[in-house]
């Protein structure tokens, strides 16, 4: 399931890419509340839910609901599969940037950005 020179189409969208990178900043096993993620990305709840659903269908994230009534809370966790998929995505991105540069070396800030952690 690839597009744009081997980039994962599930991740390769501005909002979903932001969601994945934001969740990957957390330690493995940590979750981020839906409201905090929404606030960080500046999205409407509906828009974020749509993109999270696509990521969840691919097995990249898991949404966890806890509590009820006024204490209800929805959290989002990046799965191990999702972390691996993002690593593969950034590695592919770096290769594409390397092959696009005249001398094949990665020197631009964008290429540094694609480096996995």
């Amino acid at each position, binding site marked *: 399931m690839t597009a744009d*020179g081997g980039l994962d189409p599930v991740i390769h969208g501005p909002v979903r890419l932001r969601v994945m990178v934001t969740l990957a900043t957390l*330690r493995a096993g940590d979750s981020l509340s839906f409201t905090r993620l929404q606030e960080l990305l500046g999205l409407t709840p509906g828009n974020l839910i749509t993109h999270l659903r696509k990521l969840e269908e691919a097995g990249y994230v898991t949404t966890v609901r806890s509590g009820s009534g006024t204490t209800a809370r929805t959290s989002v966790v990046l799965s191990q599969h999702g972390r691996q998929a993002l690593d593969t995505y950034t590695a592919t991105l770096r290769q594409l940037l390397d092959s696009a540069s005249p001398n094949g070396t990665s020197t631009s800030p964008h290429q*540094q950005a694609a480096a996995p952690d």
Partner: protein
Amino acid sequence: MSVQEAAAIVQDARACARRELVISAPVVYAAWGLVWLLGYGGMWLSVRGQHPYRGPSGVSIAVVFVLAGFAAAAVLVIARKAAVGIDGRSVLYRRFILAAWAAGYLILLIVQAVISGSVSTRTLAMMALAGPLLLAGLVYILASVLGRNRLALALGAWLVLAAVSCAWQAPAGILATCALAGGGGFLLIAAIETRLRI
């Protein structure tokens, strides 16, 4: 979305997430480094030339508490801001480290109180002055194991070594070691962390 646009999004999202969700380690290290350097440095200056040793001046001790209070408040604000909305292992680790720190200080105070009447002034001074340095070192080693952080491990090991070296020093030397080796160690790690993040 082009490859260049995707790379820009990765860079921007990563920087934003680190700014908002990750505790700024250089700031934390620098804050505690200044407490050790200025606080213990002030106490060291107040005991230099004392014969016999009478202990640091009240003002220099008060300065340490004020500086430590400011550092603790700053670290708390930074940690709280970064922790909003996050749940999971890192929250448990943070609580565990905080509990270890509090328990360590409590044990240190109890031991000092128990042995205060039966040991020399030098031994008591060593416990009171180098004890917190040893405790800080042990807590950083614990934190490094939980968080798999090599820099924290290096700092912890350095602080433990500095604290152990106090066993062979006079009280003024202990204060100098805490100020220079302790404060210097924190500030050096803060500088390395800052460089690694750029």
